[in-house]
């Protein structure tokens, strides 16, 4: 049994929110650099170079990479031998988000009610996903999600007979419909299987996987490669203004499902695919 003071959660989450909004992970930076080299369209290349410059300015001047600093999505993987003290864990997570967004000059983009829409003015509450795992560590992943691309995400409840072609069609439809709205080059997270909510969660989790890592399942890996190549043949390009770089990666997660169903979720993320991971041990 390990005891963790929730103050540690507050401090870490606050720092992670600020870090995620000013610095992209190394895999994302490399993917963007390679894209700028390989892009065929002159305007597309210019946009990709501006994105590099934008990242540099963000880090040097501590200005968020994008003004949409997102809704804070928090994945908590908690070892079952961990005990929290000093307060309620969920309150601590939200306090960390509040401090990160207020102290870190991040935009407050959350409204209290989806219809009446008063801004909560501190970007809380966060969207929190807990999982209980073996051991005595706590792994925190913060993935601030902007809504330009979130709004273009989709869930398709396909029939088993639609098969893998149906899945490809669903992903390509979502990407084509998203077009310039989702700030391409995008990262495409896909969840296949499970239930309605499980496939959506898998698609979100897929976005936190490094863009240079593929699925370990051979057919899923092939599907990731094929879809990426098809998406990049769409012509949408950087900023949706034409080109050969529409997506940087397609990351797919799968799960067992029901005999009657084939749920597919497509969670689209812009080129500011932010995620920071810390393990408290």
């Amino acid at each position, binding site marked *: 049994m390990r005891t963790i003071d929730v103050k540690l959660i507050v401090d870490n989450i606050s720092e992670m929110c600020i870090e995620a909004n000013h610095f992209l992970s190394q895999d994302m930076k490399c993917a963007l650099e390679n894209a700028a080299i390989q892009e*065929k*369209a002159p*305007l*597309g290349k210019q*946009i990709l170079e*501006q*994105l590099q*410059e*934008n*990242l540099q*300015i*963000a880090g040097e*001047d*501590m*200005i*968020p*990479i*994008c*003004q*949409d*600093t997102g809704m804070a999505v928090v994945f908590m993987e908690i070892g079952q031998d961990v005990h929290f003290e000093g307060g309620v864990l969920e309150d601590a997570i939200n306090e960390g988000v509040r401090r990160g967004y207020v102290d870190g*000059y*991040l*935009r*407050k*983009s959350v409204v209290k009610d989806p219809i009446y*829409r008063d*801004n909560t*003015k501190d970007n809380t509450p966060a969207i929190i996903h807990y999982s209980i795992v073996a051991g005595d560590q706590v792994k925190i992943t913060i993935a601030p999600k*902007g809504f*330009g691309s979130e*709004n273009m995400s989709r869930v398709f409840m396909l029939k088993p007979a639609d098969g893998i072609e149906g899945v490809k069609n669903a992903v390509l439809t979502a990407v084509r419909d998203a*077009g*310039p*709205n989702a*700030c391409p080059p995008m990262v495409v997270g896909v969840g296949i299987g499970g239930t309605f909510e499980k496939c959506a969660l898998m698609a979100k989790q897929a976005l936190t996987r490094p863009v240079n890592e593929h699925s370990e399942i051979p057919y899923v890996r092939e599907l990731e490669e094929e879809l990426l190549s*098809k998406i990049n*043949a*769409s*012509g*949408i*390009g950087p*900023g*949706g*203004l*034409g*080109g*050969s770089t529409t997506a940087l990666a397609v990351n797919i997660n799968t799960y067992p499902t029901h005999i009657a169903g084939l749920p597919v979720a497509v969670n689209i993320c*812009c*080129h*500011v695919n932010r995620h920071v991971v810390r393990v408290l041990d």
Partner: protein
Amino acid sequence: MDKYINVPFGAEDVANLHAGDYVYLTGTIYTARDAAHKRMYEALQKGESLPLEIKNNVIYYMGPSPAREGRPIGSAGPTTASRMDKYTPALLDLGLIGMIGKGKRSEEVKAAIVRNGAVYFAAVGGAGALLSRSIIESEVIAYDDLGTEAIRRLKVEKFPVIVVIDSQGNNLYETAIQEYRTEA
């Protein structure tokens, strides 16, 4: 083709702007996004006046992150324009000359752009740190209670945008994609 124009601008400038032009804007523009548009639209329906002069002005669909001390503004890139589509034709009919955002527009907006001789520009989405360098001053002029969604008057210098829909109705999003499409 690179062009430099001062904002506000008039019909003669619009006539020279074509889909695909890279344009640097210098002068004064106004920010408004979802909540400010809703409020302006409701004001017009009630016959009230708007908090800014619409004629010949440019609206930037943008809600910035907070400014650090000594800086005019925080990160300041465009938001998705289509959410403003419902409210836009009424503003274009009042003389709004330009909009800066990102993403597709509805047929109704496109028709209103052509009807009124206006222009829709895109700024590079997700480049808010870079774009903030072209903004020299920022002042909230209305709807302060909306926070990031308040209406701001911005002074911009060589603010980089690309003409997407011009006054003839040409749409770069449609033509550019065809050019680089390689799938069947």
